[in-house]
């Protein structure tokens, strides 16, 4: 099965890291993964995206023409990337900076990623991993243990504990969203 995920936001929010961890996790879980990110000035301050294609089959085409899952941390990213979300696709928005659009056949979930980061960690830095957790809690794409291993493999050791906790907080939010 093929799942196409796009993370969108502003450079500096950790969008690329969220995508990298997801791709790494998929590889560790024995899936095929392909991804590409904004590169250059876009990755450093303005609109930014990270795409991940996951599949148990070899991946012919590694870019996204359409997304099954979109997770965004800025209003601009939502408006720019919403058109590529498939009918029946799932959209996650961080309610701190994004106003959820009206329901139009896609499933929208507005989640407090940044608010949870500020409340639990005293800063916004973990919001990206919380949002990654939300996606993983709501959509079965990659086993969580593989994601934990990917975090340990990707993030500096002194940040492991905080990131693993942020992931769990996000997964809880995602599971709650799934039940709605």
């Amino acid at each position, binding site marked *: 099965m093929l799942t196409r995920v796009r993370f969108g936001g502003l450079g500096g929010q950790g969008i690329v890291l969220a995508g990298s961890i997801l791709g790494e996790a998929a590889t560790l879980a024995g899936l095929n993964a*392909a991804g590409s990110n904004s590169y250059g000035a876009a990755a450093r301050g303005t609109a930014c995206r990270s795409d991940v294609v996951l599949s148990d089959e070899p991946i012919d085409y*590694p870019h996204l023409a359409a997304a099954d899952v979109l997770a965004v941390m800025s209003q601009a990213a939502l408006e720019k990337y919403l058109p590529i979300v498939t009918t029946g696709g799932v959209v996650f928005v961080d309610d701190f900076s994004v106003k959820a659009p009206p329901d139009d056949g896609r499933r929208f979930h507005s989640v407090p990623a940044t608010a949870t980061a500020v409340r639990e960690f005293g800063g916004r830095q973990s919001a990206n991993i919380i949002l990654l957790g939300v996606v993983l809690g709501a959509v079965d794409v990659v086993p969580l243990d593989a994601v934990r291993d990917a975090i340990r493999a990707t993030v500096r050791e002194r940040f492991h504990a905080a990131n693993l906790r942020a992931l769990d907080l996000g997964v809880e939010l995602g599971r709650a969203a799934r039940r709605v």
Partner: protein
Amino acid sequence: METLAELLPRAGGVFVQMEDEIASISAVIGASWTGAKAMTATSGPGFSLMMEALGYAVFTETPCVIVDVQRAGPCTGQATRVGGGDVMQCKWGMHGDVEIVALAPWSVQEMYDLSVRAFNVAERLRLPVFLMADEAVGHLHETAEFHDRIAVEQRDRRKGFPPFGHGDPGGVPPMPCFGDGENLLVTGSTHDERGYRKVEEPQVHARLVERLRQKVLLRRDELVDVERYMLDDAETVIVAYGFTARGALAAARELRGRGRKVGLLRLRTLWPFADKEVAALDGRARRVFVPEMNHGQVLGEVRKHFRGDVAGYGQTDGEVIPVGTIVREVERLT
């Protein structure tokens, strides 16, 4: 390159950052003559800057690998955007008549596998080998398998032979290195088999240039590398390479789903060109379609060898060619 800077010294290698691309390729050539396997990587105008020294590498039969991650040009162009406009440059950017080998990876796996192959071909043929990637492949993250052991072509460093040929047309002479104790003359001027400058003798020049060409041409069957997808009954064949070939494969599958008999001939080598493989489509396929991120650099080669209908689609806006575009263009032809 940043990764190599970190990893190479740990593996006993050397990483040097030079002041520009002219110095980089020149240092690579020098390193190769000490016996090292040497490479550099560049993009855009950096590739242009390397051209003179690359001609020197061809003429002095210096094994080396050049990775060109093609981007939108000409000139500085869009430095972070994709392009495919260097296909002809790697073949004809050096003045004079040269034959080189250029490989076209389409995945992270092939960036690795074809780098290994590039080094092996460079050593076997004593010439620069080009890994003609593009930005979309260069910035791709992907599942890939890296091997504990790889087949490595060892350089023939036997002493006592003429280091620039010995009458064998297309022959690859042994290459002793600086420090091996041989009396070596290395020059970019016309030279005889021992390396002595012979800039006034037509026969010496003709013999040398012809041998350098035949080194590649006589081995074209072992060098040319293509992949064939769904060609058996294909009425329309897409010929593509690099990242565009992945879009072409997805498009071919989509078109098959709509009942169109479409296949893909994927070029994993750009040079020497897959002339026989393209010509073999004659009489089987009705038409060939060549999408590429330039205005027809491979299209022209395909036209030389396929006698049926040939159409191209060139896109040079710094974006990859979407699958949907290839589907649309093929449907328009059929």
